[in-house]
Structure formats: C-alpha cells, structure tokens
C-alpha cells in the first residue's frame, strides 16, 4: 500500500505545493526543497517492478517503477532537490512564479518517469515542457524571451510529433500501456512513419542534432538552477521516451539503429567541437550536454541494431546518464559561484578544488565517475557490436574525450579569468547546494559501482586509467601554452548554429500565411459584391421596378394584359378538346 502512495505522492506533492502558491506564495517558496523528498523516498523504498493502477485518471493510467525508471528517478530526484535548494539562495525576483513553474516542471519530470502508460507519460511530458518555458523566460530579458519563443515552438512541434506517433503506436499495438507493446507494430501499416515521428519528437527534447537548436539558447537564458535541471534531468526525458516507446530488446531494426548511431556520433563530435568555440560558459556546457546525449543516442542505436544487447547496454546508459546529470548539474551550479566571493585562505582553496572536480569528472579523469561511465559505455557497446564498429567507437571516444577536455579547459579558464559581471553574492543555500552536489560527484564512482557492480573490475584496469588521463594532460598542456599569448584569437561563434536555417523557414511560412489570408479576404463576399454589382445598381433597380409597376397600372396596359390572357388561355385549351 505504501508503495502505491509513494508512487503517486512523488509527482502529486510538487503539484499540490504549486497549487498552494495561489494562497500562500511564501509558504510554497519555503517548501520548495521538500517537494522532491517523496520522489527520493520512492527511489529507496519502492521495490523495482511494483505498480499502481488508477483507472479513473485519464484513460486508465498505471504508475510503476521498472529498472529504467529506477535509474532515472534516482538522478532526477537528486538534481531537482539540489537545484531547488540552490534556487532558494539564487532567485531573488518573482520568486513565487519561479517556484510555481519549477514545481510543475518537477512534477512533470517525476510523473513521466513513473508513468507506465503512454497517455500518462504524454501528460507529464507536456506538463514538464510547458512549465519549463516559465523557467527559461524567468529573467524576462530579451535573450530569454527569444530563447523562450524558439523553445516553445520546438516544444509544440515535439508535442505534436509525439502525439501522432503515440496515436499510431497505440492503435497498431492495440494497447496504451508500455508493458504490453508487441514489437510487430513497426512493421504494420505506417509503423515506420510513427517510429520516425516518435524519434523526432523525443529527439527535440533529447537534443538530437538537427533539432537541438533550442538547447544552446535556452540553457544560458534560464537562471542557473533551472538550466542545471534542464540539462541534468529534463534532457533525459527524451531518452526515457525512446526507451519506453521504441521496441527495445524486441525486434531488430538495423535501419533505424544505423540512423540513431549516425546522428549520435555526429552530435557526439560536432557539438563538442562547436562547444569549444563558445564564449558564454553556459552555452559551452549546453553544447557539451548535446555531445554527451549524442553518445547515449548511439547507445540506443546499438540496442536497436542488436536487440539482445539491451540487458548490457541499458545499465551503461543509466550509469552514463547519472554521471552526466551530476557533473553537468554541478558545472551549471558552479557558474553562479565566484572564487573571489569567498574569503581568501583555506576556504578559497577548497572552493577552487571543488570548482575543478566536476570539469575533470566530465572529462573522464581517472577515478572519477566520468571515467567509470566512459569505460562502462565502451565495454557495454563493444560487447554487442562488430569488431570493425568497435575500432570506430574507440576512435570516436578518444576524439570526444579530447574535445571534452578542451571544453572543460576553456570553461575553467573563463571561470577563473573573467570575474562575472557584478553579481551580488548568492545566499548561503547556493553554496551549500553546490557543495553537496560536488560532494555527490566525488563519491559518485562509488555510488555507481554499488548500484551497477559489473563496472568495478573494468574501470580500475590500467589501460582504462591511462586512456582517461592522457587527453586531460595533453589539453591542459596545450592550453597552458596558449593561455598567456595575448595575440591569440579566441573564436566566438554564435550560440544557435542551425537556427538561421529555421528562421528562413519561418519567414517563408509567414509570407505564405499573409498571402493566403490576403487572398481569402480578397475573395470574400463583399469584395465580390463590389466587383459584380455596380454601386448605383440598387437605386436603378428600384426605379426600374417602380416604373414598370406604374406602367402596369395604366388602364390600356391592363386591358392588353386582360385580352392577352383571354386569348392565351383559349389557345392553351384549344388543342385540348
């Protein structure tokens, strides 16, 4: 009984708190942190595989916790709670509205993880997407509004794509709950079409390459706790969507698998490369998230190609996701921390150490969760793909680690060199939240190992350790050489890369809309009336009518008509004898 209560309470609690914002805004703000606790409790208390049925809600929803759900729930609850804690100190203006959107997004995120049926999943997915719009636009600066507009447009497109895909899948598979999906729906009728719709729909949320344009705009614009959550937890929703909907571990879909891998690899490399050129540190982190998501897309692609590898690859994905969530969250939170806000001496050194740990971990430095995750991913993928692909993968991983190291170096350099604009020192909560998150990052290798024992042996082998250290050393060496050359031209590429293409497209649509509406008004009734009926026609028509009427009245005409009728009717009856 307790499980079902917890399962429901985890997503209901934030909703209820958001509702209280109407009556007591200050109370909601205070209780912001506690909203995530039922979720966290669910992670520890609810055994995997338990579920609860709510037939009344929507079209009969089921909440439950399976292996994938458990993994993601853990990382999501942690990052949401810490982000909430951080926001307590960080957010000063329009707290209640931020609190409401934050809680709604949190409830959406928890709900979609727990949902075991499509409709419930879609409900919470939509709730999360729309609520996070409020977070993105919280600063109300022009960049935030622009980012918000791009974000909402893509969200709507995502929603619609997911809806159509979901409708197709639901009917072809005959059921709405994930468990009973057969895998044959893809082959039926227009299964491929719906598969593609789902891929694109969740791709937008997961930042798959062609549709990632909103990420580099939204994350910098959002306040730091929001962007931490956005990048840490919400971006994973797309991944969860893929895992839930697509026939993982059932039918072999080599074609789709190849697409996934291709796009994943492209993102993996190009995003990282583009990220290095970013001046804004948050944009830089956004691009690094895109590249990391690219890796996970490749993992999903592998599962699609080799269905039976799912049991191995999924844990790797979970590990990598957890690692990425914590590091990325810590990095984003650290953006609000400034070294010289801290009194000099031991505390400043401690902060600088703590500031350095997450980048290293993300770059996959030895003994960090990044290294564990990367080796696990390498081992997991290699177990299931052909040797030739394996070498390609190794090369990719190497390049990526180099690029990520470069990213991290630039990030640290920008953090330490440029003191951010005069920003009044954040509250104590921000420091504490950030500190705990970095602590988690530090102990995460142990956590991962305990949760996923299989990783221990491999990650400690010498080869793995070396392969994790050399990229960092090489990059830091190059960086050290370049950093004090003042002549050095540091490239600054704009945040949105493919955005200008889309803008062209929207211009086109807008132009078409204007023309068609002008045409519609043109062909409207009163235009036609003016066209065909000359202005004074009414008047002439009336006078004509009156003339004929008066002429009819004349006696002679009347006589003519009278006699005419006489003859006409006799004629008519004449032949009828």
């Amino acid at each position: 009984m307790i499980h079902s209560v917890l399962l429901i309470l985890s997503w209901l609690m934030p909703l209820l708190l958001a509702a209280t914002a109407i009556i007591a805004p200050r109370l909601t703000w205070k209780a912001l942190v506690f909203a995530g606790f039922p979720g966290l409790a669910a992670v520890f208390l609810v055994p995997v595989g338990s579920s609860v049925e709510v037939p009344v809600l929507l079209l009969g929803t089921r909440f439950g916790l399976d292996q994938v759900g458990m993994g993601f729930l853990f990382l999501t609850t942690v990052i949401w709670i810490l982000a909430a804690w951080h926001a307590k100190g960080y957010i000063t203006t329009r707290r209640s509205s931020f609190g409401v959107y934050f809680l709604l997004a949190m409830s959406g995120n928890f709900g979609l993880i727990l949902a075991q049926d499509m409709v419930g999943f879609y409900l919470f997915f939509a709730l999360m997407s729309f609520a996070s719009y409020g977070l993105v636009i919280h600063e109300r600066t022009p960049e935030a509004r622009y980012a918000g507009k791009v974000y909402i447009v893509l969200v709507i497109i995502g929603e619609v794509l997911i809806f159509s895909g979901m409708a197709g899948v639901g009917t072809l598979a005959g059921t709405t709950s994930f468990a009973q999906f057969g895998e044959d729906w893809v082959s039926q009728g227009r299964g491929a079409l719906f598969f593609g719709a789902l891929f694109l729909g969740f791709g937008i949320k997961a930042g798959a390459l062609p549709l990632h344009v909103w990420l580099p705009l939204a994350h910098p614009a959002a306040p730091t706790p929001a962007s931490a959550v956005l990048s840490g937890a919400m971006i994973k929703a797309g991944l969860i969507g893929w895992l839930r909907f697509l026939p993982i571990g059932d039918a072999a879909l080599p074609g789709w698998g190849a697409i996934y891998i291709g796009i994943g690899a492209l993102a993996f490399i190009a995003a990282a490369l583009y990220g290095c050129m970013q001046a804004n540190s948050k944009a830089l982190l956004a691009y690094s998230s895109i590249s990391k998501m690219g890796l996970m897309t490749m993992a999903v692609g592998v599962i699609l190609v080799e269905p039976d590898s799912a049991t191995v690859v999924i844990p790797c994905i979970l590990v990598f996701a957890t690692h990425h969530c914590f590091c990325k969250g810590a990095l984003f939170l650290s953006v609000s921390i400034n070294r010289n806000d801290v009194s000099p001496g031991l505390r400043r050194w401690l902060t600088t150490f703590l500031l350095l740990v997450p980048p290293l971990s993300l770059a996959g430095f030895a003994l960090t969760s990044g290294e564990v995750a990367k080796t696990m991913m390498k081992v997991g993928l290699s177990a299931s793909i052909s040797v030739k692909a394996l070498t390609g993968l190794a090369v990719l991983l190497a390049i990526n680690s180099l690029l990520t190291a470069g990213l991290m170096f630039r990030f640290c350099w920008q953090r330490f060199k440029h003191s951010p604009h005069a920003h009044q020192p954040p509250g104590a909560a921000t420091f504490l939240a950030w500190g705990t998150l970095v602590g988690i990052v530090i102990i995460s290798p142990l956590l991962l190992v305990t949760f996923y024992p299989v990783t221990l042996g491999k990650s400690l082998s010498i080869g793995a350790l070396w392969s994790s250290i050399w990229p960092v050393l090489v990059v830091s060496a190059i960086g050290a050489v370049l950093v004090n050359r003042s002549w050095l031209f540091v490239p600054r590429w704009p945040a949105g890369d493919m955005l200008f293409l889309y803008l062209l497209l929207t211009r086109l649509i807008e132009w078409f809309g204007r023309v068609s509406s002008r045409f519609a008004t043109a062909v409207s009734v009163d235009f036609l009336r003016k066209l065909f009926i000359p202005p004074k026609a009414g008047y002439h028509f009336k006078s004509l009518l009156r003339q004929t009427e008066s002429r009819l009245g004349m006696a002679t005409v009347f006589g003519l008509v009278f006699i005419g009728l006489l003859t006409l009717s006799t004629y008519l009856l004449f032949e009828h004898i």
Partner: protein
Amino acid sequence: MTVALLYSITGFLLFLMGICGLIFRSSLIRRALALNITASGIFLFIVAQAYKGESALPDPVPHGLVLTGIVIGASATALMIYLIGVLRYVSPGDNDSGEEE
C-alpha cells in the same frame, strides 16, 4: 342565323366593345358608361339564349338573373358616379377626415 345566335353575337360583341371602351378611355365617366354597356351585352346574351322562339314560352330563370343583374349593375354604376363626384370635390392632399397622413 337564328334569333338566338344573332342576339347572342350582338351581346358578345357589346361585351367586347365595352371592355375595349373601358380600356381605351381614361376618364372615369366614360369607364362607367363602358361598364354599363358590357353589362348590357351580357344580359342581351343571356336573354337571347333564353328565347325559345315565337310560339314557345321563354325560360324565365335567365330573365330573373338578368333582372337581378340589371339592379346590381345599376347600383354599382350609381356608387361609381357618386365616388366620381366626391373625388372631384376632394382636392388632392386634402386630408378630409382620414386618420393617417
């Protein structure tokens, strides 16, 4: 060409002449005259058809009808003449005692 046919045709012609007179004359008195002639035409036709020859007795029913017709025609004409008189007396636009404009 029996008596009945001759008088019937005369009656019919009178009827037509009365109608033509009614149509081509715009003055009201002329129209009253034309109407009377039309009526006489009809009555002539009726009585002609009622005539059964020198020796036989004529059919009295048409005679009765014609008598009624004459009286009705006369009263209608009288009313018409009276209205003509009143119309001449009331000048246009003179609102003698009508209730609207």
